[in-house]
């Protein structure tokens, strides 16, 4: 008996797994039929980001430094009140075209200072920023951040352009996507007609580009001219949103231009390498059938 079981053990194990999977299949199918999942408002009305074209797109993409500088200005004057940029240092700004002196001035004038220690008393104190510092946190800790923001923590923006599906396009869409749920329609369907019970919880804001439609962040860009650009670009809401998306792309991937340039060289080298090795291969095997 034991030897018989051992001999057919593979069939027994295979049949056991298949049987349990069939049971599971039966459960899933009958659940699906008896209790079909209802579509939620998020599934029907959540939007994928609108297309956004930046100079950094594609295999040869580089940063439009003027746009990135404008985006930095938007970050500085709007976003930085709540959002940290803790992986980026002031000295990094030289890579987007600011001179050493300008970077020094930007760091020294930054509204929030670096936490430090009083030289004489040893007590907690602050000091002005220097270029070597990373951007200081707008809130001392998470509790302070929650207290100031209706119990939500504004996320760090250093990597935002890589930490969401869609990257900069998502950021741009989110910034310009705030709308009124009462009049919101998508694909010919009106939100309030399809889901009459839909309501935006207090303290949240309706935005179809956000995963669950309701976001804690109030609309940050509300009127044209909120930021005054020095290069004469007209600061529409859409323009400011685009510029800050470009800036955050740079903040997340500061070495993109160098990466693309290196990549073109490496690919050209490898194409020559493949040509040479293929020639060597043909040469070595000449006259040998295989």
């Amino acid at each position, binding site marked *: 008996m034991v030897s018989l079981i051992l001999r057919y053990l593979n069939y027994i194990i295979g049949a056991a797994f298949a049987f349990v999977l069939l049971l599971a299949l039966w459960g899933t199918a009958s659940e699906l039929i008896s209790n079909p999942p209802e579509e939620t408002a998020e599934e029907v009305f959540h939007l994928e980001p609108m297309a956004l074209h930046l100079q950094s797109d594609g295999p040869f993409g580089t940063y439009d430094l003027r746009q990135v500088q404008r985006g930095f200005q938007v970050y500085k004057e709007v976003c930085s009140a709540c959002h940290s940029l803790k992986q980026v240092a002031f000295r990094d700004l030289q890579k987007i075209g600011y001179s050493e002196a300008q970077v020094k001035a930007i760091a020294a004038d930054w509204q929030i200072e670096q936490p430090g220690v009083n030289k004489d008393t040893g007590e907690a104190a602050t000091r002005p920023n220097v270029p070597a510092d990373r951007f200081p946190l707008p809130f001392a800790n998470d509790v302070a951040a929650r207290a100031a923001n209706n119990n939500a923590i504004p996320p760090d923006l250093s990597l935002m352009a890589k930490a969401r*599906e869609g990257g900069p396009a998502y950021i741009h869409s989110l910034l310009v996507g705030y709308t009124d749920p009462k009049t919101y329609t998508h694909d010919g369907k009106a939100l309030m007609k399809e889901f009459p019970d839909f309501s935006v919880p207090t303290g949240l804001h309706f935005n179809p580009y956000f995963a669950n439609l309701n976001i804690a962040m109030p609309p940050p860009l509300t009127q044209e001219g909120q930021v005054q650009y020095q290069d004469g670009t007209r600061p529409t809401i859409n323009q400011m949103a685009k510029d800050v998306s470009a800036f955050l792309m740079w903040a997340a991937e500061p070495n993109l231009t160098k990466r693309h340039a290196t*990549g073109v060289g490496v690919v050209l080298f490898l194409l020559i*390498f493949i040509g040479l090795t293929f020639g*060597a291969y043909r040469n070595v095997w000449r006259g040998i059938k295989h």
Partner: protein
Amino acid sequence: MSFPWAEEYKPKHPAMQWVDQRLPLPRLVYNAIGAGYPVPRNLNYFWNFGVLAGAALAIQIVTGIVLAMHYAPNAATAFGSVEHIMRDINAGWLLRYCHATGASMFFIVVYIHIFRGLYYGSYKPPREMVWLLGVVIFLLMMATAFMGYVLPWGQMSFWGAQVITGFFSAIPVVGENIRIWLLGGYAPDQAALNRFFSLHYLLPFVIAGVIILHIWALHIPGSNNPTGVEVKGEQDTVPFHPYYTAKDGVGVGVFLLVFALLVFFAPNYLGHPDNYIEANPLSTPAHIVPEWYFWPFYAILRSFTADFILPAKLWGVLAMFGSILLLFFLPWLDRSPVRSANYRPVYRIFSWVLIVDVLLLGYVGGSEATPAYLLLGQVTAAYYFVHFLIIIPIVSSLERTRPLPNSITEAVLQGKSGARMKETAVDGHVAPAE
């Protein structure tokens, strides 16, 4: 080694003769991957992938050692140290993207290498030991890759570690204690991160060691080939060098080209955006998914949703580990004396069905667990087990195989170096002289 007609290592330079008499290391290399190793003359490009896997491991070790010089395995600093590498270290972005993408490349070539073995029957006698060691390498790779993915301490790192170590809690009675012991705490944290780093640094060298055994075991019978017919004489083989070193050179070039395209132009394509968010034990991501190379196994795990004697979770964990462990038994599940699928019309079809099945499993594993995907996962997971444990044994005893060529050379001279042969093609021909 291997065949009597293998060329002997005869160093010309007195210095090399001096070395050879005292430590015949050059002789070992010569016999392993030089002119001293006769290889079937009809290998196709599928036989490049062993060398490519070795190249991928070398890339991972070199980039990994340099990354470890800058990485800080501490829950408070790990995420920041990776960003420090990306932003401030000279060519740090290149090292890290090479290492992250290199892991994917390693799995791509190893999966093709495994399929090559399945299709051409490389696991069959006398090469069972090569296959068994290969499965050991695969298991070690999975452990190494999993622990490596935890190190950047992003959201997917943390929650992946939470899910994977959670498997152990499915073990009855002692499971939870084992999980806590492995993690060094109730959840992944400082202790887990530090030991994962230690093991992630150790295991690649263990893999390198098992690869040496893998190649050693391979050199006893010599390489298989697309016909699956054993080497009969000298005319069936060519020396590894220069013939296959030249061919592998082309393979390495193409491998590096694909690798470079990913690293320089789509470095985050195979990753998950959530891993650019620092680990937060208080916030669970909407969808926890592992890296793409674990998707088929993740789909098998999730497909078990029904309790039957054992709880569903335990079934899932057993099946997931079982799906890999059953590969150890493949040489004894498949009893057919014919190796290559080119001469096994039924097995050939099923091996392509298996590929489609595993690709579907991967697709399901990477998607949300909605009922529709769950159903597809359950069907494809069931096929996976039925394929290896029921279909293969039955096919191997019932199948009528096609006639084999008398030798590799005969197949080559007929211009069918392993392609399917018509029965008439074999009948009229006399085997070439041995």
